[in-house]
């Protein structure tokens, strides 16, 4: 039925590759979002400079709500990064589990055939 006798065939290899790529992308995206979360601080600092003509600490002392605002924006962006990270990681592990399940059943079939 199949060209190769091995249990790990080309379809499994494809899924395994996608899984490895998802795992890699999850890490890259996580780093990007951590940087983006830090970028929020820079954005607020720029706003303080251009609109209020002060620095970040000056802005916070003038309007304490900006502290909460900034913290929540950093949390939101970080959370988005974490969500993408977990989803990609989950997809990668899910694909590996599918491959493992299929190989287990194939192994069982081969063993059944030999008997």
């Amino acid at each position: 039925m199949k060209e190769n006798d091995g249990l790990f065939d080309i379809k499994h290899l494809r899924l395994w590759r996608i899984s490895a790529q998802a795992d890699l992308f999850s890490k890259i995206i996580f780093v990007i979002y951590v940087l983006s979360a830090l970028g929020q601080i820079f954005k607020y600092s720029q706003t303080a400079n251009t609109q209020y003509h002060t620095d970040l600490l000056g802005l916070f002392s003038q309007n304490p709500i900006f502290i909460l605002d900034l913290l929540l924006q950093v949390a939101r962006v970080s959370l988005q990064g974490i969500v993408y990270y977990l989803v990609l990681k989950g997809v990668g592990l899910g694909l590996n589990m599918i491959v493992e399940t299929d190989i287990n059943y194939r192994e069982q079939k081969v063993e059944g055939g030999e008997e």
Partner: protein
Amino acid sequence: MSEEFRNQIYKELDLRETDALLDIWQSNDRVEWSDIAFDVIKEILGKRIDEIPPQNEPILEHKEESIEDDGLEEWETKLLDDKDQPELYDTLEVLSLKDNINKVANAVIVVYVLIGLLNFQFVRMLFQGTVLSFSGIVQTIPNMLVTLFSIGLQILVLYFPLKALAQILRILMEMEFNSRKAK
């Protein structure tokens, strides 16, 4: 009545495969299975196999405290304790990922609700030390409704896929575990 009950148990257990009955017989779990059930299993096994293997020490109570200590469910402990571990993924990694997904799903609700609250004008004004009048609050109602809708939508879009992913991972792991047992 007792005989009728025994016959009912016999019929139900007789439908099970010999391996499954042997597992029950050997595990000797007296909490899960009654004395009558073990009598019946012995009778069925006696008819199916030549020699009935000895039973383990009887289990008279389930040790649930270790499961609670680890924060793992019973099936998760079963997966981790299994000798035949998968080659392509790490069981513990999946379990901790599932756990983290559930935590992040809850964190999403908290963070987005706080963001929503901070977007309400009267909350912002409270932080600035001024209280918005009743008529002022009424005027902001349309804006509040839009904010509520937008935040609710963002929570739904993130919360449900995350919960679904955690369940999918659980089901896939159970399927993989069952395929191992089928080997």
